[in-house]
C-alpha cells in the first residue's frame, strides 16, 4: 500500500485535472481556476461513491474542529497549521461534493461512518467530542485539539485506503493518495507541536 505514495508523487504532475476534458491538455491552475472545474469523469464504482460520501461527513467534522481551533488555538504555529488545513479541506469538500452531485449521487450518509463498529469501537471523533472543544479551558485547548485532530487525520488515512484499494475512478483514487500524503504531513507537524 505504501509504495503508492511514491507512485502518486511520480504521477501527480500528469494527473492534474486529467479528467476534466478528455481531449484537451490538462488544465493549468490559473488565477481564475475554480475547484469546481476539477471533474471526476464518468468511470466510477460503488466504492468511489461510498468513500466520497464517508469522506464528506469526515470533512465536515474536520471543518467544525478547525473552525473552533482557529479561534481558540494558543500556539501561533498551531493556529497557522489549522488555518492551512481549513483552507485546503474546504476546497477538498467542495470538490468531492461536486463529484458526487455530478454523478447524481447523494452527498449524505445515513449513519456516521465508523470503521470500528464491528468490534465495538467508537470513532475518535463524534459530535460530543467536537463540541467539547468549545468548552475546554484555554490552557488545555491545544492538547485537547491535537489529541482529537490527530485521531481524525489518522482516520482520514484509514478511510483513504478504501478508495485506493477498491475505487475505480482515477480522480478519487488520486485524491485518496493526496489525502494519505497530506494527512501524514499534517500529523508530523502536529506531533512535533504536541511534543514542544
Amino acid at each position, binding site marked *: *500500500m*505504501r*509504495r503508492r*505514495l*511514491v507512485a502518486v*508523487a*511520480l504521477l*501527480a*504532475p500528469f494527473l*492534474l*485535472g486529467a479528467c476534466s476534458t478528455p481531449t484537451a491538455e490538462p*488544465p*493549468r*491552475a*490559473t*488565477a481564475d*481556476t475554480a*475547484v469546481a472545474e476539477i471533474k471526476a469523469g464518468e468511470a466510477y464504482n*460503488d466504492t468511489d461513491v461510498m468513500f466520497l460520501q464517508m469522506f464528506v461527513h469526515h470533512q465536515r467534522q474536520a471543518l467544525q474542529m478547525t473552525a473552533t481551533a482557529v479561534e481558540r488555538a494558543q500556539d501561533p504555529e498551531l493556529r*497557522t*497549521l489549522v*488555518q*492551512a488545513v481549513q483552507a485546503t479541506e474546504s*476546497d477538498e469538500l467542495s470538490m468531492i461534493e461536486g463529484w458526487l452531485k455530478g454523478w447524481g449521487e447523494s452527498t449524505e*450518509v*445515513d*449513519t456516521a*461512518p465508523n470503521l*470500528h*463498529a*464491528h*468490534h*465495538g469501537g*467508537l*470513532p*475518535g*471523533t463524534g459530535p460530543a*467530542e467536537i463540541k*467539547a472543544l468549545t468548552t475546554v479551558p484555554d490552557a488545555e485547548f491545544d*492538547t*485537547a485539539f491535537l*489529541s482529537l485532530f*490527530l*485521531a481524525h487525520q*489518522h*482516520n482520514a*488515512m*484509514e478511510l483513504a*485506503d*478504501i478508495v485506493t484499494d*477498491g475505487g475505480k475512478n482515477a480522480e478519487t483514487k488520486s485524491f485518496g493518495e*493526496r489525502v*494519505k500524503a*497530506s494527512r*501524514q*504531513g499534517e500529523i*508530523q507537524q502536529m*506531533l512535533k507541536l*504536541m*511534543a514542544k
Partner: protein
Amino acid sequence: MRRKISYPLVALGMVASSLTVASPAQAHGYVSNPPSRQALCAAGTVRDCGPIQFEPQSVEAPKGSQRCDGGVAQWSVLSDESRNWPARNVGSSVTFTWVLTARHRTADWEYFIDGTRIATFDGGNAQPDATVSHTIDLGKFPGRQRLLAVWNIGDTPMAFYNCVDLNVGGGGGGVVPTRPPASSEPPANPPAAPPAAPPAADPPAAPPAADPPAADPPAAPPAAPVTGDPWAAGVSYKTGDVVTYEGTRYQCRQGHTSLNSWEPSIYTLALWLPL
C-alpha cells in the same frame, strides 16, 4: 490497514469482497506526549522506521506482553535498542497523553518500568473520553528510563503497547540522547528506506519536477524565500511569498509549513495562487 466497516448504503457482499480481503492489526491508539517510539517515527523525528510511521496507532497484540513492539514482528523496530531512541527530559511528575483513533471499552491503562507496574488506571470497561491523559509520579525512577505504557481493551484479548524513553529529573522539555544523536540528526544521505515503506514526508524520492531540492527538510523550517525560489517541502511560507514550481510562479495565499502533496497545483489553490 484494510478493515471491516459498517456501511448501510452498500450491499454487504461488496463490502465484504473489497474491504476485508486482509485484516491485520486493528489501529486504535498510542501515546503522543511525551512521545512514544511510534510517535517519534510518525513525526519523522526518528527515520527509517518502516510502516509504523504511517500507523503509530497500530501496535496491538495480546495482553501481557512487556515488549515495546508487543511481540509483533511487523513493529520490531520499536524494540530495537540500537536505534538510540531520544529520551524526553521530564520532571518527576509526568502527564502521558494518548491519541485514540477508536475509543474501545477499556479494562485499564498500565505503566511499567523494568517489568514492574508503577501505575494503573481503571477504565471501568467503558468507552474512554476523546482525550486521555494520566499523570504519574516518577520521582523514584530518576535518570534514563524506558517506560512501557499499555492500553488493555475491555472486550477483546488485545492491548496496545508503547515505549516512552524518558530522562526523569531532567526538567521539562528537551531531548537528551545517551549516545551521539544518530536518530535525531539524520545524516545528509540517509540510508535507503525499504522499498515498501518510503518515508513519504520527505521530498519525493523520485522528484516530481525537474529541479526540486533533494535534501531532507531541515529540522526547523528555514526562512521562507520571497523571490521565487523553487518550492520545497518543510519550508515555512508566509502569505505573499513567491515560489516557482514546474516553471510557474505562485504566490502564497495562506501561511503554512509546506508538506508533500501541498505543492502548488490545481488542488492547492487555497494555498498558492498562480501568477
